[in-house]
């Protein structure tokens, strides 16, 4: 899906999660799912900053982080271009790290009031989506 008119990134400026992190996470989720083809262009830093009503530097930082991860190529005045990113082979410690973060996230959700069953159900749904390669 190349720059589909319905591909929209949503953020919440009132959230405790920093805006740049929300942009990175949102874009990464779309990139991982394959919402963009290599060569597709994302909005310029200025355009995205104006539409989201956030500082330029916030958007620039998000793009920079995604560029460091190998998802984007940044060119002045041309915005960001999606790159063909080769799948990386994660080190064993990344698996442990991921499992640890997932446990912490589940604990946080339960601590915030979600019941264990709901958390388990969400994790199960996520697992199904991943198997089906559905959008995250």
């Amino acid at each position, binding site marked *: 899906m190349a*720059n*589909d*008119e*319905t*591909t*929209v*990134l*949503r*953020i*919440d*400026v*009132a*959230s405790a999660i920093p805006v740049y992190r929300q942009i990175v996470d949102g*874009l990464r989720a*779309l990139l991982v799912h394959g*919402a*963009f083809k290599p060569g597709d*262009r*994302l*909005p*310029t830093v*200025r*355009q*995205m*900053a*104006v*539409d*989201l*009503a*956030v*500082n*330029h530097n916030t958007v620039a930082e998000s793009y920079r982080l995604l560029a460091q991860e190998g998802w984007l190529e940044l060119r002045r005045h041309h*915005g960001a271009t999606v790159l063909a990113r080769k799948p990386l082979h994660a080190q064993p410690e990344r698996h442990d790290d991921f499992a640890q973060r997932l446990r912490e996230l589940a604990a946080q959700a339960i601590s915030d009031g979600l019941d264990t069953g709901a958390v388990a159900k969400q994790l199960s749904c996520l697992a199904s989506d991943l198997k089906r390669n559905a959008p995250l």
Partner: protein
Amino acid sequence: MNMLQLTSSFAPPALVWMAAWAVILPLTARANRPDIFFTITVDPSLRESPEGRKILGGFTRSVLLFSLAGLALALIGTFAGANPALRLTLMSSGIVIQMAGIINAFATARRRVRPYHVEASKQREVLLAPRRTRPAAGWLGQAGPLLILAAAAFWLWLKWNQAGQRTGEASTSWKSAFGSVIFGTTLCFVLSILFNSLARGVRRIHSSGSEAEKEARNLRSVLWLVLALEYCLALMFGFSNVMPLFLNKILNVALSIVCVAIVIVPLRNGQGGWRLRGRSSTSTQGQPVVIGDRTPDECWKIGLLYYNPNDPAVFVEKRFMAGWTVNMGNPRSWLVLGGIVIFIVTLFVVAH
């Protein structure tokens, strides 16, 4: 021109101007986004509620009352015999009364709306596709007015040379010969900057769905009107001296229609095109979402001036009256405004 002639020529446009304010302002208050009421973010249901209708009715009555009083005084001034000082005083007083009444009506309406203020949604969205880089109407359509003026300048230059420092149009001064073309070029240039700034720089409040489509349609219609204005001005300042009288009259009528349309169309469309046909956005619970215009209320000074250094937008939607205004907190806005002012002042100085 003596004082009497001056007041006589000043009277008709002043009266039309005052009457136009009386009609347009109450309509303007109804054209803002449903969740912006007298420049304050409110629940969209407020406007149609009994209290909302009461506030709007009060504003309309107040504007009409003071406008009628002002118009009456200005009319008396227009027919106040041969005393120019009395005429000027009565007419100026009429204008001042109307303006004071409008300001008072606006301030009162705002004060009454303020208790209903709600926080707009903090959710923001952006369409992940680059904007079209090709300008609306294409490069040629955009360049058309400047090409017309260039052709007019070339034609004048040819005539100038043929007549040996004379255009044959009764003047030897280059200012008289080219002044009109230079002035037209300046106007078209400024309008062209405005056109491109709006086409590329305004914020999309909605990025998807019917609301986004309405916004795009509204912007397109405004851009076409600005372009039509550019063409009318280019023809008028380029060729009005050499056109047959009937063509000049047609051009004047066309210009008047475009000017009226520039006021009427945005009011009809509503701010951001919300009055255009199409479904309105609702939340999953079916309740209207308070989206606002993505600008914080506290950054609006008296509801009319927007100052937000943290907002990268140069142009933002006006909260009262249709169209866009500049973000005074953005240095680029000052550059744009300063550039336009310097350009016009320089031209004025050169012309004199």
